[in-house]
Every structure is written in C-alpha cells, then in structure tokens.
C-alpha cells in the first residue's frame, strides 16, 4: 500500500508551482542534431559559394537545398525516430520558402530605400512639381500633389468598390439568390480584366463621350473596376468560412436574415473582410495604365476630384523614369518609396480597424 503524505511541505510545494511549458523543453540530443543539421550544410554550401566558380543560385538550389533536406531528415531520424522525418522535411521546406520570399522582399525594399532616400526630404514630401523641370536639382519640388492625387483616386474607388464588392459577396453567400452562378461567373471574369482595359473602358464611356474630363473621379472609377472583383471574391471566401451553425443559431433566436448578416455573420468575418479591403487596395494602388488614360497628369496640386487632370504617384513615377536626367530618375525612386510607405500605412490602419474588440 502506498500512502501519499500531504505534509505541510507538500502543500507549500503545490502552492508555489510555477506555470511551465514542458513541451518546449528539448533533449540535448535534439539540440545537437539540429545544430549540426544547420551548420554542416551551410559550411558545405559556403565552400561552394566562395571557393568555386559555380554560380550562386545553382549552389543554393542544387547543393544546399538537397543537403539541408537530407541533414534535417537525418537529424530527425536520430533524435525523434522515423515519425520525425516527414515533419523535418516540411519544416525545412516551409522555412526555406519563407526565407526565399523574405530575401526577395527585403532586397526589393533595400533597393527602394537606397535609391529612394536620395530624393526624399521635407520639400519632396510637401511641395508639388510646379516650376520644376526634369533637370531641376533635387532640392526643389516634390510629390505632395501626387500623394494627394493617389489618396483621392484610391478613396473614390473604395467608395464604389467596397460596398458593391461586399454586397456581391453577401448576395452569393447569404442571400443565395437564383443568379448566384451568373454573378460568380461575372466577378470571376472581371478579375481577369487587364488594368489597361479598365482604363480604356472609362475613357471610351465617360471621357470621349464628353461626360467628363480626365479627373480623379474617372481614375477612381477605373480603379474600382479592378478593385471590385478582388474585394468580392475575397469577401466571399471569408463569408463561406463562417460556420452554418452561426446563421441557424441567430435565425433560431428569431433574427431576420438581414440582422443575421449584419449583426452576426459580418462581425464574425470582420478581420477577413478587412483583409478583403486591404487586398483590393493593394491590387490597385500602383496601377499606372488606367491613370495614364483617364486622369492625365498635373504638376500643380489639385483639390477638385471632378474636373481637372490630376497627378498620382504611379503616373509621376512613369513620367520621371523615362527622363534622360539622373535627378528625375531619382525622383521616381523617391516617389516609389513614398508609395510603398503609403501602402504600409494603409495596411496598418486596416489591421487596427480589423482587430476591434468583442462587444
């Protein structure tokens, strides 16, 4: 008979138990195998990179990656048995893939900063391009007018595309009307529309007919054509993931269909809907072709979105890149950097809105 004694010492030890994460502990064997599995392939690859003339990408793909997979497999087999091998492969491929895309992304951003920062200054951010010729030195002139233009155009396109896109998604997943297959087909087809075609469409229908001149509004409509399918399809996917139980649960409380959608389904899908909006924005913000066709461009700051040609960052970049003057090209880099930063800021704002609180 074993009798456990609960003396005061035992009671004390229970009270002072600390929260732990035993599943994060590693055996020394595991730690060592992982360390070796990381270091050995890296050393071998390093040798081929620096001591031989084999081109770097070939070393990485033909020598390093297979070696790393092999090493991870061996390490897993040694420390975790054969069950661990498949996990290790997936791990290596996942990490490898992430690093690959990170490297590309980071080199892009670094290039952008290196080239763009030369142009960015207070005047660059606050002034417009009036009185500036392509050969003017970098101390004068800026992109404030183009930033304003981009924000105006994107804002107008969001006003149109987001309500329509979300309504389309709701029609498909919540209303489930008879036209669903056709609606889905159209949205699908629309997402294949090249941006230049969206621009041409607005150009022919609104501008060449004389209904309006080149303006932020026309640009916003062209952008909306591109943004709409992205918003609609992403929102649809998100709404589809909401469990049916949630809808029937609300309906069983006597909720109408409309209130079910507005108060239960959409809030549950909030983060996803915000993602849909962000993706829609990201889809259009750098599009150049439609703007070339329907907004024209301007060197002055334009506040009126309806009846005046207006500058935007993509058209500004487009206009400067083609110039034979180094300073103009630098301005283009600067504008590209500003564009990326604007996108980042919009993303962060969307994330903050999307996070929200539980009511």
């Amino acid at each position, binding site marked *: 008979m074993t009798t456990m004694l609960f003396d005061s010492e035992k009671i004390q030890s229970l009270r002072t138990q600390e*929260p732990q994460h035993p599943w994060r502990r590693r055996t020394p064997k595991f730690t060592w195998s992982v360390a070796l599995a990381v270091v050995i392939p890296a050393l071998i690859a390093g040798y081929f990179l620096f001591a031989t003339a084999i081109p770097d990408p070939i070393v990485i793909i033909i020598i390093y990656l297979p070696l790393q997979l092999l090493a991870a497999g061996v390490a897993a087999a040694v420390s975790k048995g054969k069950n661990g091998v498949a996990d290790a492969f997936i791990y290596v491929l996942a990490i490898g893939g992430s690093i690959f895309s990170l490297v590309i992304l980071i080199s892009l951003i670094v290039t952008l900063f290196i080239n763009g920062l030369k142009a960015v200054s207070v005047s660059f951010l606050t002034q417009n391009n009036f009185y500036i010729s392509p050969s003017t030195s970098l101390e004068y002139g800026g992109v404030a007018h183009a930033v304003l233009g981009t924000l105006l155009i994107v804002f107008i396109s969001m006003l149109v595309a987001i309500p329509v896109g979300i309504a389309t998604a709701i029609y498909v997943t919540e209303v489930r009307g008879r036209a669903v297959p056709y609606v889905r087909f159209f949205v699908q087809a629309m997402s294949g529309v090249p941006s230049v075609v969206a621009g041409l469409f607005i150009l022919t229908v609104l501008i060449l007919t004389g209904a309006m001149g080149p303006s932020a509004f026309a640009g916003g409509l062209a952008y909306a054509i591109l943004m709409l399918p992205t918003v609609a399809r992403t929102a649809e996917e998100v709404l589809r993931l909401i469990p049916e139980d949630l809808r029937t649960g609300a309906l069983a409380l006597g909720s109408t269909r409309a209130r079910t959608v507005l108060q239960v389904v959409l809030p549950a899908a909030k983060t996803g809907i915000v993602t849909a909006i962000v993706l829609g924005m990201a889809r259009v913000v750098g599009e150049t072709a439609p703007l070339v066709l329907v907004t024209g461009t301007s060197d002055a700051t334009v506040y009126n979105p309806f009846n005046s040609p207006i500058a935007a960052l993509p058209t500004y970049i487009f206009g400067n890149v083609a110039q034979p003057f180094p300073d103009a090209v630098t301005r283009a880099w600067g504008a590209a950097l500003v564009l990326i930063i604007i996108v980042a800021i919009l993303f962060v704002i969307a994330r903050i809105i999307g996070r929200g609180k539980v009511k």
Partner: protein
Amino acid sequence: MSTAEFEKSIEGLEVELSDSRAGLPIEMDARDISVWFGKRKVLEGVSIPFPKKTVTALIGPSGCGKSTFIRTLNRLHELIPGAALAGEVLYEGKDIYSPDVDPTHIRLKIGMVFQKPNPFPSMTIRGNVLSGLKLSGMKRPNHDDIVEETLRAAGLWNEVKDRLNAAAGELSGGQQQRLVIARALAVQPHVLLMDEPCSALDPASTLKIEETIRELSKEITIIIVTHNMQQAVRVSDYTAFFLAAENEPGYVVEQGPTTDIFGNPRDQRTLDYVNGRFG
C-alpha cells in the same frame, strides 16, 4: 481557494490514495497537475491515478476544468496558445511531458473522443474509421474486419453496414459520435479519453456506448467526463469530483471508488453534488 479549503481538499486525498487503487497496477498517473491559460490558473494540484483496465469518471459542475484536465493527459493541452502546465503525467513509466517523449506516440496510444462529434466530412464512413491508421502510419491487416469490429463496438454497424461508402457528413449527430468512437478504437489505443461522449446521444445509443465502455475496459483504460450521474455509476470503477469556486482554479474535492463517492461520500459538497443539489 482559502488555505483552509485547500488543506481540506488535500486532507481528503491523503485518505483516498490509500483506497483500493493503491495496490493495483497503474496505467497512467497524473501528479500535481496545475494548468494555466495565460495568467489565469484554471486547475490546481490535481493528482489522480488511473489503474489499468478500469474506468474512471470525472464529474463536476460546468467550467471546473474537467475538459482541460483530460486534454493534459494526451498532450492536446499544449496546442492552445498561452497554455502552461505544472506537474507530471506518468505513462509507460515516464512523464509524458519529458522532452524525449514523442507527443505523436502519446496521442496514438491515448485516444480521445470529443464532446462534439468531429468526423472528417470529406471522407466516407469507412474512410473515417480507417483514417487513424492512415494518419499515424500504423499498419494493421484486414481493414474490412477492423471496420466491422469497431463499428459494432461503437453500436453503429447495423445502421451503416449498407452504406459504408457514404459521406460521414450525412450521418446524424449521434451517429457521427458513434463513428468517431469507432475511429478512435481502430488504432487500438491503450487509454481512451472520452469528454462527455454521450451528450449528443439518445438513451438507446447511450446505453449502447456504455456497454461498449464496459466491454472495452476489459482491454483498455478509460477516462470519461460525464454530467450524467447515473452514467458515472453505471460505467465507472472510480470517480473524481472536481470543483472550482468562482474565478478560482478547479481542484479535486474527493476521489475514490465510485461506490464510495456516490454511496458514502466524505465531503458534504460531494454529497450535495451527486444528489443533484447544486452545480
């Protein structure tokens, strides 16, 4: 919990551990398990031995940590972000949380049936039963026999024998629950954790499952959470009664042979609970 209360719960334990379990071979032994979600402690100092080939029922009011506890026994608890744990669970002579133990092995040997039926909707009935073999890479011959045997054990065979290739999503909730029991049995676990397995079942299927539990306990060790007192009495050899004061961690008030807990409880709160006077 006040110190007085805490000592009271400990005092109970001291006597009980010298109960009839003490001499039996122990399959699994949870020792001083405390559990946190983030900063919040939801279980404190739970120690329960589970003798081989017996059924232990975990009872107690809603929210006192029974599901949380049962999930620490096959290392599902750690999958929740922010989860933390202290104490140990001895199985096969070793703490299942020691770093050289493979959680996959633990979860294969210690099967689980959840409160809500969770068959894989895109697989057939037959595919669901055999899914554990596929997912764990376990080799067993005669799949047809396994399907029939486990579905019979779960009391579902007669209802589905003519449509084994139908999608599992077509079954009713109760049928789905019996299907996942069959699925859990197909990998021949040594321990089966059941978290309110009958809460979605009709009385007939419930009885069928209870028979299955009794039958299985000749071979394996079963730990079952239930809110049904009669069920605890009918199926279990031992019972542990959990309780949590408001916003306090849960703990075991009393444990021991089911006959004692229901017939002759030591603690007033146990008496009240098993007689349906609170909770």
